[in-house]
């Protein structure tokens, strides 16, 4: 068994072990790794912000192309800093309000389109289902089963009525569908997550300790 002589590989492997050590319990090594991780990732974000936003959208256009109009959003952005002046701290609400206005306005019709209309389209029974009605994946019978599942699941989320009578039955079927779905996704994800662990261990065992060829 030989080991890597590259100090960077050692660093990578040791820090991975520091992180894994949390599984046993919180300890100074994990604390060190956690704080280093936070610091580096924030430093990384600053670089991204500086190069991709401040430089490309503010410094270059203003200093090189003299697009002075960009000083307007700059000035509005300055309002964020009023947070430090208690009497005027409410001015900070202006950039926040602008943010909320823009993004809620954009999201409103988009959500209707993506989450409602498109999903309705997917649930509709379509022509290809008639070709082979008993096909276990795409047949008509499955189409109807899916439609029933969808509708019952919707009824589970009724808030303004007590789950009684027909609503109780359908909400019950709905929650069964939901639980089947959750169980299945959980079971299915196990493989993907274990694969990630295997990937990390492969690094340790091939590049750090040369244990696996």
């Amino acid at each position, binding site marked *: 068994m030989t080991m890597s002589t590259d100090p960077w590989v050692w660093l990578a492997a040791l820090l991975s072990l520091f992180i894994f050590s*949390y599984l046993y319990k*919180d300890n100074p090594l*994990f*604390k060190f*790794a*956690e704080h280093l*991780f*936070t610091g*580096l*990732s*924030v430093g*990384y*974000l600053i670089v991204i912000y500086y190069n991709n936003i401040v430089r490309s959208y503010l410094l270059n256009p203003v200093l090189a192309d003299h697009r002075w109009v960009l000083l307007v959003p700059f000035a509005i952005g300055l309002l*964020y800093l009023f*947070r430090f002046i208690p009497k005027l701290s409410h001015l*900070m*609400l202006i950039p*926040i309000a602008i*943010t*909320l206005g823009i*993004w*809620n306005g*954009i*999201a*409103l*019709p988009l*959500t*209707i*389109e993506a989450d*409602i*209309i*498109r999903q*309705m*389209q997917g*649930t*509709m*029974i*379509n*022509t290809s289902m008639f070709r082979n009605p008993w096909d276990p994946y795409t047949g008509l019978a499955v*189409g*109807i089963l899916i*439609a029933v599942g*969808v*509708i019952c699941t*919707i*009824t589970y*989320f*009724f*808030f*303004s*009525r*007590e*789950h009684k009578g027909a609503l109780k039955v359908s909400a019950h079927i709905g929650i069964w569908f939901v639980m089947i*779905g*959750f*169980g299945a*996704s*959980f079971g299915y*994800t196990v493989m993907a*997550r274990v694969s990630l662990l295997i990937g990390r261990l492969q690094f340790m065992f091939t590049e750090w300790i040369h244990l696996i060829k």
Partner: protein
Amino acid sequence: MRTIALAGLVLLWTAWAAAIPGPAAAPPPQPATVAPPSDLAAGDTPNDAGQSISLTWRPSPDEALGVEGYEILRAESAEGPYAKVGYVPSGFGSFDDQAVPRDGRDFFYRVRAVGAGIAPSEVAAAGPARSSQQWYNAARTNALVGTLLFTLIVIYFIQGARRGRHLFIRRIAGLAAVEEAVGRATEMGKPILFCPGMDPVTSISTLAALNILGQVAKKAAEYDTPLVVPNRDPIVYTVAEAIVKEAYAEIGRPDAYNHDSVFYLTDSQMGYTSGVNGIMARERPATNFFMGYFYAESLVLAETGAATGAIQIAGTDSITQLPFFITACDYTLMGEELYAASAYLGKQPMLIGTLKAQDWSKALVGLLLVAGAALALSGPGLRQFVLRLLSID
């Protein structure tokens, strides 16, 4: 959407195809003649911002004889001169000229079949065609109807609530537990941890989470229980801080607000997770709230919390992560319940009114699904009609 992507693709492609040099010039022995493409039609591209003309043609019947592609030529008068504005490979019968110099001016087009071993052959010019911009995207009519309908339903029920109509809402276990969870933290003298999700403020689940944060902060202020709110997004951080501060002010205890309770951690997904793990291990919060949108870290957060013995209430509309919260937390708000939460906790009639509106809209969706299925089963013509109503560009 797909058309836009396709148009962009074709545009890029033409640019790219124009940029690479043609094949080495070897004099073809005997250029074959091929039938030209036919039925060229040119017209304004619908539902766009202008300066684009769409062309369609029937490909040359002799494509197999060596047609490599079609050159698209444009001129300002029928006689020319024509200049090349694009190229598509053989097999394609359409092109969007997205570089039309001006709207409202007449342009003429020709399409020419070209290939290494053939003599170029052109279809007769089509035109005049004019590009124009549209003020309404007709392809989105169904989304417009949906948006208007939903807005009207919401406004109707809000008006009802304003007039003081009593509205019933059923119990949601996860929300009923909020008070108890805050109380428990108070009893134990431990802090409450609140994670407002991993998404930026541009995502509505984050806003829903912040609304809940407002209610939780008020309860924490009332009981004088310390609150810990680590953030992943800078803007969410500023909003979260404003909310918590105001909650303390509203309870009448602005002095009790601790400036260090809402803070920014890091933007890195796993960096944030390791930071929150650290907080859970060291400060041992008695109650954890995970509200908003989460990704793979959901289980790491929830399992760590479970290991510290905290009461955990999660709420997310991230369908892929719901199973993990359900298995590892004490209470989980599933999907829509996250959005309903602030109405429940705030108990203001107008917010409850919107819940009622949501229910009616859900009933409408269910009804439409049933009706659509019934229509679809009744005959192919109606089926096409229904699918077309729902089609989105």
